[in-house]
């Protein structure tokens, strides 16, 4: 499996990442891409931006571990994870995940697995910046833990 992991401030260009992945994906019949983007609202409050921080080095290692876990479960040919940090304005991309496999069921399952674990295991922290200038750390969601736990039964 070709695996490439990046954590950075700069935006991502999906077309560029897709071209790289396809060049390495071998005889893949299915490519699943997930993009997470900054939404303009949290509940009723209008958001201006998110601030993301992480634990350099540890983050990349954790993502690699998660991706290799996925590889033991599904026959993946290529995997790209790009997660941004810093100040991300509403509408900007936060995370780009691309998974290639021979068949679609494996590509979908691996992409969901990776996102569930990325949300619950990788050391990223989000702070919301509202349009009124106030800031608030985002609480970890119980629903994310539950999403990640559903894979344990299959292990």
């Amino acid at each position: 499996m070709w695996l490439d992991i990046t954590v950075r401030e700069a935006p991502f260009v999906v077309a560029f990442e897709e071209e790289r992945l396809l060049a390495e994906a071998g005889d893949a019949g299915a490519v699943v891409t997930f993009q997470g983007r900054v939404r303009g609202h949290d509940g009723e409050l209008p958001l201006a931006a998110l601030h993301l921080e992480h634990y350099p080095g540890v983050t990349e290692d954790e993502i690699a571990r998660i991706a290799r876990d996925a590889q033991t479960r599904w026959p993946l040919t290529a995997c790209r994870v790009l997660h941004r940090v810093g100040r991300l304005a509403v509408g900007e991309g936060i995370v780009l995940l691309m998974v290639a496999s021979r068949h679609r069921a494996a590509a979908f399952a691996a992409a969901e697995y990776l996102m569930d674990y990325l949300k619950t295991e990788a050391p990223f922290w989000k702070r919301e910046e509202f349009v009124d200038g106030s800031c608030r750390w985002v609480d970890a969601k119980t629903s994310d833990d539950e999403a990640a736990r559903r894979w344990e039964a299959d292990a």
Partner: protein
Amino acid sequence: MIRILYFGFLREALGRDSETLAWDGGDSDALLALLRERGDNWAAALAPDKVFRVVVDREVRRGVVAIPDGAEVGILPPVTGG
């Protein structure tokens, strides 16, 4: 001596990014207990449900981990990426 790094809301709650601490050895539970004794805001910020993981020398292990002298210790609140 160990070097402690704080992440996420812990930086604001504890008023620091990092610190250097004299250390006689012990595990992550011992370190957390020591830090919680510093006062109510430390005990609240480092309550069990607020500490997701303690990472020693950038090697992620689950549960209680040994902390040798000279270690870098990351104290991670629950993560919210993706």
